[in-house]
């Protein structure tokens, strides 16, 4: 069983490259209400309705990092409470989650997971990783994405 909770970042970034359906690779997907409202503020992507997910309330009291926004704190709290993988593209949120023992990955990991589980071919995974870097609001260095694509080919 593979279960995850995203903050708004991966939902928005995967939607921007028309790949939100990759989130269906998870057996269980929990979406905190705070995160849903953040995504909703920019317009809920149509593809989200095609993915099974459960909206949940979060108890954010134990996530006290002030550097994080409400959605990131909520997602970390849910990940910790339900012992599921956190999905975030924010480096600070990633470090905060790791610090409290939460396993954490980002949109690139979701693409690799889709590839690993046979939802997409390696060539498509490479194209999506490049699109993630060039066509979305995600900031990641070009050379780092190429390193990720290289790893796809090596494994």
């Amino acid at each position: 069983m593979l279960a995850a909770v995203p903050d708004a970042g991966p939902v928005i970034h995967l939607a921007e490259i028309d790949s939100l359906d990759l989130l269906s690779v998870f057996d269980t997907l929990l979406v905190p209400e705070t995160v849903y409202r953040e995504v909703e503020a920019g317009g809920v992507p149509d593809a989200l309705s095609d993915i099974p997910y459960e909206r949940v309330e979060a108890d954010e009291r134990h996530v006290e990092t002030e550097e994080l926004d409400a959605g990131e704190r909520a997602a970390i709290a849910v990940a910790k409470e339900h012992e599921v993988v956190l999905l975030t593209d924010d480096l600070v949120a990633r470090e905060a989650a790791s610090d409290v023992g939460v396993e954490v990955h980002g949109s690139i990991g979701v693409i690799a997971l889709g590839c690993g589980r046979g939802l997409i071919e390696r060539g498509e995974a490479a194209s999506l990783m490049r699109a993630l870097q060039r066509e979305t609001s995600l900031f990641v260095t070009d050379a780092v994405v190429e390193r990720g694509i290289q790893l796809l080919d090596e494994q």
Partner: protein
Amino acid sequence: MAAEISDRVREIAEARGLPESEVFERALERGLEDLWEDLVLARYLDGELDREEAIERVGRTKVERAERERTVVEEDVDWGLNA
């Protein structure tokens, strides 16, 4: 896209009181700087350039950011392919 670029150049030129040619010149410089940084970081990550030289060319902040991103991407791809 071409029309959008022309509109933006015109708007920037008017707002900044610059000739459009200078707006193009500044855009080229900024774009070139980004491409240069990408090249330096790619060479560093590929092991063709040592760390100190990369820092000298693009600054410590960008090199350290690229290192953190590399770790994250490597972890993510490894997890994705093996989860």
